[in-house]
Structure formats: C-alpha cells, structure tokens
C-alpha cells in the first residue's frame, strides 16, 4: 500500500493531500453546522408551546362568544358556530398533557384539560337548557360556565406566562450553550487548520525531501566533487526517476574519470620506461667507453710492453714501461682510498722518473723525509697533482734547471709535507684562486685529470678543517711552496 502510494506521480500526491485536508476541514465544518442547526431548531421549538396555548385561548373565546351569542339571539348561525368551535376547542384540548408531571407546566396543562372538558359540559348544558327554554337552568349553567371560562383563561394566561418564563430560561441557556459551542467550534476550526497545515507541510516535505537531497548532491557535483554516495531512491515518481538518472550519471562520470586516470597512468609508465631505457643505453655506452680506457687494460698492456722490452734486452725501456705500469696501477688500485705518505711518495718518485724520461732529465727532485712519518695516512692522488702543478706551471715555463724539493717532517702532532719549486712562481691572484679551491685554468691536455681544486677539496674533506694546505709564493720568478699539514694520529699500523 505504502509503496503504491509512493509510486504515484507528484501531481496526484499533491492533489490527494489537498483533497484530504479539505475533506477534513469540510467534514468538521459540516458536523459543526449540523450541530448548530440542531441547536437553532431547538430554539425555534421553544416557543411552539406558547403558540399552541394561544390557539386554545382563541378557540375558547370563540366557544364562549358563540354561546353568548346564541343565548342572546338564538340564531342557528350562532348555534352552528358554537358546535364548530366547541369541536375545535375539544380537539385542541385533547392534545394537552393529562399526566401528573413533575413540572408545573404539565400539571397546569392537565388542569386546563380537565377544566375545559367540564366547561364544554357546562356550555353544552347551557345551550340545551336554552333550547328547552329552561330559563332558570340556563342562567345558572351560564354563570358556572362563565366562571369556568374565567378560570381557564387565567390558567391559560398563567401557563403562558410560566411557559414563557421557562422558555426564556431555556432559551437563555441554549443561547449560552450556543455561544460556547460557537467558541468551541472556532477553536476546533483553528486546531483543524493548524493540524492540516502541519499535515500539508509534513507530507509535502516528504515529497520534496528527495528533491532537496538531489539539489544538494547536484551542487556538490557542480563544485567538482564526484566522490558522493548515491542518493537512496524510495519512490518511482518523477523525482524518483530524476534521482535514479542522476545517480547513474554520477556513477558514469566517476567511472569515466577512473578510466581517464588509468590511461594517464599507463602513459606515464610507458614514458618512464622509455627514459630508463635511454639512460641504460647511455650507461652502457659510457661503460663501453670506459672499458676502452680501463687502467687495468692499460696496466696489463704496459706490463706486456715491459716484458717485451726485457726480452729484447732493452733495460731502460723495460724500466720505463715498468715504472709507467706502476704509476697506472697506483691509479687503479688507490684511486679512491686512503693511502700512506710513503705510498704517495713512491708515486711521486715514479712520476718524476716518467717526467724525466719524457723531458730528458730537466727536473731535479730532492727529498728529505722523516721516515717515521711514512705511515701517516692521507688521501691518495694528492702529492702527484701538486708536483704536476709545479712542473706544468712552475718549471716547464722557466729557463734553466728546474728543482723540486720535497720535505716531510714532524711539527708537534702534525706531519708536514712541503713541496717547493724554483719555478716562475705565482702572482697573488693565482695564489688566492688556488687557496679558494678554484681551478686555475682548464688546460687538461697533459694532466692526469685531477686539478688543484680537486686536491684542495679532498684534503679539506679528509682533515675536516680548512687549514690543511698552505700555498705560498714570494712572487713571480721566485718559485712556489705548498705545505700539507696532516694529523699524525691518522697513522696506519703496518
């Protein structure tokens, strides 16, 4: 039943509600009207009894008058009048109450009834006596009848009065009741109107509620929020249909958005893969290129060269190639590790030897080493780049004999390695630049690839302090001096 109601179209629902409420109001109106009519009818009947009494009064007067007329004139007309009026009067009094009632009115009616019958009797006897010309008799009868007539009239008058009094009383009470009823009726109407208003509001809000939630959801969707729950549909009226469609639309949009997102994700993954592959390719190419200059390979080939030279009996060549192999092997082995001062010094020896072979003994290399410091640890590939710097920038550009002096000594807890050359020296600017760890030039054609900036940076990282390398020059033409300060504590156990 309820579902059936729910499935009705809104138009019919609305019409139904208004019909129901109107019917309610109408029915109550009708009931009130009937009740009021009922009461006013009662008020009407109140005076009915008075009318009846008046009729009786008129009727008895006619009887009396016709009797008197007959007694006076003895016409057949008056006799006829008498019979007719007596009949009428008798009929009228017949309806009067004959019971002994609790109310005065009823008892008075009874008395009137009894007196009336006696009166009619007396009048009848009077008429008869008149007709029989019994003068004495009809006179006394007439007197009796007239007396009774007076009594009856008084009774009727009194009863009329009493009745009027009582009727007025009941009329007043009825009127009071009527007023009360009126007030109550108005109250009822107000209550009914209020109730029906509440009813209409409630019922329409029942109908409108899904529409309102639909609007709210539509608002959400309009703001771009598709993450909403579906609206429950519990009717299949117009709103139900729209709600269903809306739900479906939202779900579809959600699905569509999901699909879009998925395809975007796939595309992104594909692109990433492509990039990765490219990177890998580049890596492979690099590896390949690196492999070409692998120091192992170089070292092995040099070793092979050295063995060849030995077999051929070319000792100098052998030695040279051997030293070169050593030099490169150091690069390979110690490229990234910490080494000892001794190992660094050895590399410097080899380097100087190679340079001297290359530049036919131009460089005089002296060293003065405190042997106890040979095991002090330091980063690899430090001294050789400094020597290279000295050679490249100090000695090679000068005329005359180049000298490089290496001195390793202890100063308190610090192992100092000083490298001096007698080269062209450096101007202030170059010294500053070196001190600040900036490359002096980008000339790399003859270099091992490691610049002074690199050396300085690694030394600083190793020592954890800036005061690890001092670079001095007394000016152009007066040579330059590098001093490395190392903590002796970093001594390697041999």
């Amino acid at each position: 039943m309820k579902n059936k109601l729910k499935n009705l179209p809104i138009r019919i629902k609305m019409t139904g509600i208004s019909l129901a409420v109107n019917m309610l109001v109408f029915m109550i109106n009708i009931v009130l009207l009937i009740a009021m009519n009922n009461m006013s009818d009662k008020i009407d009947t109140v005076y009915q009894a008075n009318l009846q009494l008046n009729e009786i009064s008129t009727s008895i007067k006619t009887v009396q008058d016709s009797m008197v007329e007959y007694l006076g004139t003895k016409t057949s007309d008056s006799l006829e009048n008498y019979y007719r009026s007596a009949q009428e009067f008798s009929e009228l009094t017949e309806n009067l109450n004959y019971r002994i009632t609790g109310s005065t009115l009823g008892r008075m009616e009874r008395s009137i009834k009894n007196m009336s019958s006696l009166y009619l009797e007396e009048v009848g006897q009077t008429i008869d006596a008149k007709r029989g010309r019994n003068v004495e008799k009809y006179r006394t009868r007439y007197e009796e009848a007239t007396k009774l007539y007076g009594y009856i009239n008084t009774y009727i008058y009194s009863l009329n009065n009493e009745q009027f009094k009582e009727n007025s009383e009941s009329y007043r009470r009825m009127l009071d009741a009527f007023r009360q009823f009126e007030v109550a009726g108005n109250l009822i109407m107000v209550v009914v109107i209020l109730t029906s208003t509440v009813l209409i509001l409630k019922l329409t809000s029942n109908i409108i509620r899904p529409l309102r939630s639909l609007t709210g959801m539509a608002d959400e969707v309009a703001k771009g929020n598709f993450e909403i729950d579906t609206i429950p549909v519990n009717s299949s009226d117009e709103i139900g249909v729209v709600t269903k469609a809306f739900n479906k639309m939202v779900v579809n949009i959600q699905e569509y958005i999901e699909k879009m997102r998925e395809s975007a994700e796939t595309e992104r993954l594909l692109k990433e893969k492509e990039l990765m592959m490219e990177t890998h390719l580049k890596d492979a190419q690099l590896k390949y290129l690196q492999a070409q200059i692998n120091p192992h390979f170089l070292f092995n080939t040099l070793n092979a060269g050295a063995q060849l030279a030995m077999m051929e009996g070319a000792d100098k060549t052998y030695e040279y190639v051997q030293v070169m192999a050593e030099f490169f092997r150091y690069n390979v082995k110690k490229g990234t590790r910490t080494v000892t001062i001794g190992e660094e010094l050895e590399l410097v020896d080899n380097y100087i030897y190679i340079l001297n072979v290359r530049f036919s003994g131009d460089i005089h290399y002296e060293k003065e080493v405190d042997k106890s410091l040979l095991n002090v640890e330091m980063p690899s590939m430090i001294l050789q780049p400094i020597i290279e710097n000295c050679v490249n920038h100090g000695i090679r550009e000068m005329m005359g004999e180049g000298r490089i002096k290496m001195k390793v000594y202890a100063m308190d807890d610090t192992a100092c390695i000083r490298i001096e050359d007698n080269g062209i020296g450096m101007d202030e600017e170059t010294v500053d630049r070196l001190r600040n760890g900036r490359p002096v030039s980008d000339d790399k054609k003859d270099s091992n690839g490691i610049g002074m900036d690199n050396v300085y940076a690694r030394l600083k990282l190793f020592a954890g302090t800036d005061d690890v390398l001092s670079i001095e020059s007394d000016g152009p033409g007066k040579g330059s001096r590098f001093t490395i300060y190392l903590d002796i504590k970093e001594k390697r156990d041999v």
Partner: protein
Amino acid sequence: MRKILSKLNSITVFIITGVMLGLTGLLIFFFLSYSKTLSRTEQDVTYDKYYVMITDEAESSFWKSVYDAALKTAKEENAYVEMISNNLSRDYSQTELMEIAIASDVDGIIVTAGESERMTELINRAYEAGIPVVTLFNDNTQSERLSFVGVGNYNLGKEYGNLIIKMANEKMFPGNRIKVTVLVDAGSEDSGQNVLAAAIQDTIAKENGENAGRHKPIEVSLVAVDASNNFSVEESVRNLFVQGSTKIPSIVVCLNENDTNSVYQAVVDYNQVGLVNILGYYDSEAILKGIERDVIYATLSIDTQQLGQYCVDALTEYYELGNTSQYFTADSYVINKKNVNEYRGEAVDEK
C-alpha cells in the same frame, strides 16, 4: 520549523491528526448531548396522584414550610402536592381556588377551610365529585371533609396563658394592670382561633382568681386585625401603637406569622422595645432573630413538618384503605431566649 517538522515522522503526524479528530468528535458529542439535556425537563417524571393545597397567606414561610413537608411526603408516595395559588397570575379567594381545584378534577384537596357556609358547600361539592378534602389548621366541622389536621388550639391557648403569667411574675409592668392584647383575625370564621383566644382568657381568669396579689391583675383584650387584604394587617397593628402610650398594651399575643412580623416591626419602629412584650407565633428566621434581640419574648412553634405530612398521610390512607382518622394533631413548642440557639442548631442540622 523545518527541524520540528523533520522530527515528526509520519506516524506521529497520523497520531496527532487522529487525536485532533477524536477531540473534535468528543466536543461535538458533548455539545449535542448537552443541548439535548437542555430541552429535557421534569416532564419525564410522572406521579399517580395530584393533590392541591389551598391556604390563606400562601407566601408566608409557615405555610411554605407546611407545603414543603407535604410535598416531600407526597413524593415518597408518588403523588404531587401543589399550592395552586402560586402558579396563577391572578389572586383568587380560597373558595374560588376550591372551585378551580374541583373543576380540575384533582385527587385531593388540602384547604385551610374555616367554618363558612360557602366553604362547607364547596367541600361537599368536592366530596360529591369524589375528591377527598382535608381541612388544615382551620376546620370546617359541618362539611363532609375527610380529616382535620391542626394543632390542639385549646392547649396552645393555655400555653400562651402560661407564658403571660410567667412574664407577669418575672417582669415589672407600668400601670396598675398588665394589659394583654390578643390579635385575632377580624374576618375569620375560624373556630380554631376562637378556641385559642378563649383558652387564653380562661387561663388568665383562673390565674387572676387563684394568685391574685402575686402580680398585678392581668387584663386580656381581643383586638381584631383586618386581614381582608394584603396591607390591612400592617395598618391594624400600627393602630395599636398610635393610640397614645397609656393604651399601648404591655403584652401582645400574635396568633399567626404575619401578625408577629408586623408587631415586631412596629415595636421597633415606635421605640417600644422592652415596654411591649411580644408573644409570637411560628419560628421563621425573622422571629427567631427577634427572640435573640429580646424584642420577642417567646414564640410558639408548630411542627409544620407534621402538619404537612399528616395532610398527605390522610389522603394516602384514604386512597389505600378507603378511610382515615378524623383528626390529626401536630406538636407545638415554646421557643424563648434560652432554647433559641438550640432550636436553631437543630433546624440547621435538619437542613
């Protein structure tokens, strides 16, 4: 509003509607039944017998009290007693009322008859018409009346006489004689009153003879009060007091309620309180107040309940047994300052 609405689920709405409709229905039902009860009168009650009471001075509280008692008794017997003069817009004489009652074909007549011939004739007419007549208070001995209900008038008179003697012994009176005036009804053919007055005179005469010297001699005079119309009683009573101080009686004996009230008022008006002593009749509220205020020395109260009751009893017995006793006598009491409160307390209790 919306919040409240949302809280109302449909069930509550239906309940509210139902309750409203129910209330409306109840109200309407209530009013319909109320309007029905409005038009309903005592007509629904009916009685078997209809008796009529005819008294002079029907409006006095004495007769009212008698009537009430009669009505109460009658209702117990499923009969109704009516004081017909009360319902009529015209004032009729007792004989006219008798005629009306006979013409109305009532089941019984209670009448304060008196000994007039006309009354005898009417009572006999009623008797012929099959209507039993009970004479109340004033008998009509010549007629075919069924019973007489009254008080022992001779005893009552003796009682008054004794009260007068008591006063003569208690109080000091001016002059060389104690003047007693008994107010009697001028127009009355009432033998009862005569008997009463005679009894008073007898008692006083006896006292004067036996106990002469113990108090001043007592002189009893009868004064006729004109009760022929409504205002004449008052005039007659006033006449007593305007005739000069020497002629004003020391003791006034009233033999009905009206006289008592009039004399009481006159004594107050003419500033005779303490000088004129009243012996009253009946125990109306005004008279009791007079006793409390020492204006009325004492009053004789007749048991009106008994009077009323006996009238109806006589008629009931007549209808049940075909006959009843000829005489019914109601009790009487003396009420004075000593027992007035007591009496009043009883009266209140009865009510």
